[in-house]
């Protein structure tokens, strides 16, 4: 099944549950009406939260840049000895 159909199916299921809630009036109706808005707002919050958490814990590796620089020096030295023209940047 295409991904878009899966997502639509999910949304339809959620809508069906919502309509069910409206019909059965388990929760007071005026609150049930607001549920889709809660849903959208919480989805948005989830998105921002995930981006925020991701940003805060963004894995960085400054020491890798240093190690790479060492590798570059080592490689240039080796290759120069063997006649590979690595002089020009």
């Amino acid at each position, binding site marked *: 099944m295409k991904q*878009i159909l899966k*997502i639509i199916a999910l949304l339809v299921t959620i809508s069906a549950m919502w309509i069910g809630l409206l019909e059965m009036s388990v929760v007071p109706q005026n609150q049930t009406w607001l549920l889709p808005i809660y849903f959208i707002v919480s989805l948005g919050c989830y998105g921002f939260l995930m981006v925020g958490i*991701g940003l805060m814990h963004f*894995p960085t590796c400054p020491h*890798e840049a240093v190690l790479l620089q060492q590798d*570059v020096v080592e*490689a240039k030295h080796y*290759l120069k000895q063997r006649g590979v023209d690595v002089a020009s940047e």
Partner: protein
Amino acid sequence: MEDVRPEGGAGDKYSLIVPTYNERLNIALIVYLVFKHLRDVDFEIIIVDDGSPDGTQDIVKQLQQVYGDDRILLRARPRKLGLGTAYRHGLKHASGNFVVIMDADLSHHPKYLPSFIKKQQETGASIVTGTRYVKGGGVHGWNLMRKLTSRGANVLAQTFLWPGVSDLTGSFRLYRKSVLEDLINSCVSKGYVFQMEMIVRASRKGYHIEEVPITFVDRVFGSSKLGGSEIVEYLKGLAYLLVTT
């Protein structure tokens, strides 16, 4: 069809495909580092150069003198023809049963190759993909804006595509050759959306995908900044994958 040869045997050969354009220094460094880190492994490096004017091909010929032209294969093309077709071109000349795809700009460090191979042998996976977003991985040289767009793109993709891998746009990957051939023929995107399409389609086709942490060092600071057009391309790619996979 899955290739069912025994794993971890001595018969495995790895073909590294490295597309280049004006990478005369970097390609030399990469070749040196590959030979340094892949000892006791049967491999070949296939360099697909798109007619670089800076003499990349001359350097490759010098490297062939040092390491042998059976280990370093130069498969040049006359002009810049794009990344997707570069892989296809390299794949035609690959003699290994596994193929590794990596960038030539040294953001993909060859020291991770052994962990790709080890992971594949341990799990029997068809694809091992490098991820920057797990413990042991990381990025260096990105500004806040670049990190923000990367994170936003990732959250969008994870929410809507459920891809099953943590790093969709990274392109440092090991593929079983038959799997790469299958995937490359079913992917149509360009640029880095192509990398995303490859891994999403692989996931949908039910291929066994494993991840290994890699670090990604952007040496030219800010070179990979994302402009508005890249963001639009990304969103179009996302929508395309939503309706076609």
